[in-house]
């Protein structure tokens, strides 16, 4: 069992699930269960409010303990439905057979079904996928799928690509049809060359020439739309990096969820997550239900060999430090990483030596050292003049800084 294993397993049912419910825009969800109520697998825990809302589904049989306020591992402050899981009879999704009639369904019906199954666009920010497909901004009538995974350690998307290439391509086709677009482009990192070849061969087999697979440089942060989109089309070069940074692009988890929602009618209650780090006994990619605690998720990989120095949700460059082991996994979580102490030790901050390394690695060509200097002396106008607001927060500058300056923090103060 390793990170390269194509078969993704599911952990044993945890004792407790804390399923996140997003009350406000853009999700518009309203909890419909009460404390003490028995809930079953696949049941709706929250109903959509209004036209833009999406439901939340129950990932296991059990009883509702209560509605609590919590913070997911990915840093979202949400309400959560706490469920005491019936571990002997937790339930599982059983597909009744592949439905192939999706090719004849109208775009409206595809979007309605995607919405009904609660599928979210799992990118940098969560949002309802159906709403994105209906009202999203698309350039050149092309749906762009962001399959680049440039964060170190994270391989969940690549493993999905390798394990289910045909399903991914059908998922892309479903999204393309649902958005009423002419073409689709799957942007893959050049490090996943095996996945590129597999996808191309499947597309050739299907004769779906309107779907293109293109490899992009495997350099962090290639998965950031601000870096990816100008390489996809020069049109994006004229748009400010910060605007592109928030540009919604479906990733592989989204595509696969849409495929399952349409073809199998599966509700969106789990996603593929990489659990890794030098402290993990058996690093691997697994299916994690939303709401599972970090500790329970780690058990799927046989726990840890030793006390981690830092436990992260997301990659080590942009991930969020997990505050406690009860925090639930959400649809935004693509990785859980347990890094050892010797890899995360904080170094003493020294003075800037003007080596220029930070400027060299900045993907949007800012001068991080200058912005940080302006921020330190609280010259906010100066920081803005140096375009601090265009910072993507990728952390490249802070990573290479020989003086160990907290450049990302200093730059973000300068916004």
């Amino acid at each position, binding site marked *: 069992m390793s990170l390269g294993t194509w078969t993704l397993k599911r952990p044993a049912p945890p004792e407790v699930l804390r399923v996140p419910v997003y009350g406000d825009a853009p999700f518009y969800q309203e909890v419909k269960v009460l404390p003490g109520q028995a809930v079953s697998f696949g049941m709706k825990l929250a109903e959509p409010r209004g036209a833009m809302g999406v439901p939340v589904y129950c990932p296991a049989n059990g009883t509702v303990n209560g509605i609590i306020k919590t913070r997911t591992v990915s840093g979202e402050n949400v309400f959560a439905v706490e469920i005491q899981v019936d571990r002997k009879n937790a339930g599982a999704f059983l597909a009744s057979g592949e439905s192939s009639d999706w090719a004849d369904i109208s775009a409206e019906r595809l979007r309605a079904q995607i919405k009904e199954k609660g599928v979210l666009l799992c990118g940098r920010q969560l949002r309802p996928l159906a709403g994105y497909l209906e009202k999203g901004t698309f350039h050149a009538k092309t749906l762009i799928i962001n399959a680049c995974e440039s964060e170190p350690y994270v391989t969940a998307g690549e493993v999905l690509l390798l394990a289910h290439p045909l399903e991914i391509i059908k998922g892309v086709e479903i999204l393309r049809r649902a958005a009423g677009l002419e073409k689709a482009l799957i942007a893959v990192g050049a490090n996943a060359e095996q996945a590129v070849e597999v996808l191309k061969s499947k597309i050739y087999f299907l004769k779906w020439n309107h779907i293109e697979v293109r490899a992009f440089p495997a350099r962090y942060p290639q998965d950031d739309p601000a870096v990816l989109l100008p390489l996809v089309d020069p049109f994006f070069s004229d748009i400010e990096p910060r605007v592109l940074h928030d540009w919604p692009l479906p990733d592989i988890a989204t595509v696969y969820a849409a495929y399952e929602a349409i073809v199998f009618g599966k509700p969106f209650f789990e996603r593929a997550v990489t659990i890794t780090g030098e402290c993990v006994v058996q690093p691997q990619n697994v299916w994690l239900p939303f709401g599972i605690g970090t500790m329970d998720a780690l058990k799927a990989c046989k726990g840890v060999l030793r006390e981690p120095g830092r*436990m992260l949700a997301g990659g080590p460059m942009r991930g969020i430090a997990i505050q406690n082991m009860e925090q639930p996994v959400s649809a935004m979580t693509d990785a859980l990483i347990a890094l050892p102490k010797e890899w*995360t030790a904080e170094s003493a901050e020294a003075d*800037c030596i003007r080596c*220029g390394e930070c400027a060299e690695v900045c993907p949007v060509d800012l001068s991080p050292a200058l912005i940080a200097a302006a921020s330190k002396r609280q010259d906010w106008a100066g920081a803005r*003049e140096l375009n601090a607001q265009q910072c993507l927060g990728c952390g490249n500058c802070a990573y290479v800084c020989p003086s160990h300056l907290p450049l990302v923090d200093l730059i973000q103060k300068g916004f």
Partner: protein
Amino acid sequence: MQPTIAFNQGAAPHLKNEISFVSMLARQLGALLILLLASFWMQGLAGLLLFAVVLVTAFAGEIILRFLGFSAVPKWDLALIHQTVLLALFVPALTSPALIAASTFAMTFFYRASGGRGAYVLQPVCLALAFLSVLGVTPAYALQGMTMIPSAILFALWAALRFPRTRVEAERFICVLILAVLLTLLHGMPMGPAFLWAAAAGEILFDYALAPLSSAARMGYRVFVLILFALFLAAARAEEALLFTGLTAGFIGAWIEKRNLNGRVYGKA
């Protein structure tokens, strides 16, 4: 084992930085040592004397510029050591202490007046001079008459590839263009296009051929180019050209800071 976890305060990026201040400085000092040896080999004890002149002038220049309010940072930092090391890379090229002192001061001014951006502008200038020096001491010098066409092609390629997108490239682009024009005015026709050719070739090589390399490999490349530059420039004895470059770059650095190309590239300041 299950973690008890009493973590977790750190901000991203979470991976420990492998580059230390000492290793960075050691790399620069290593490069300096090689250059000093080269200088000693070519110029004898005079090379060591010239290094001392650089050091004293750089310190004096720093103090004067701080006094005049040119310092970009509020407190004393290690930039001076770093820039002295860089400046000393030019030592073997010069033979007159007065020229060295003037050039060092120009460089110090350039660094400070440009708010630290001098490093990025100086890099292609070094590369360009290195290539130009190679042209100057090899039979390729005879080909200078042909440099107009390749220089135009390379410059256009560079502009097409990078210029519209990035601020740093815009600064380099404009600096090199102005330097090329000034060099043409001062030294005649072959000089400007040759400089342009060298700068564009250096930039394209650096950006596209060397970008995928590791930081250490790129640093090695820079050291190699700077050694080449020092050796060939020493042989060509192009003191005036270097001094001129240093002074011009100083003024251009100050001009860049004033114009704030940052905002102009992204249309927002």
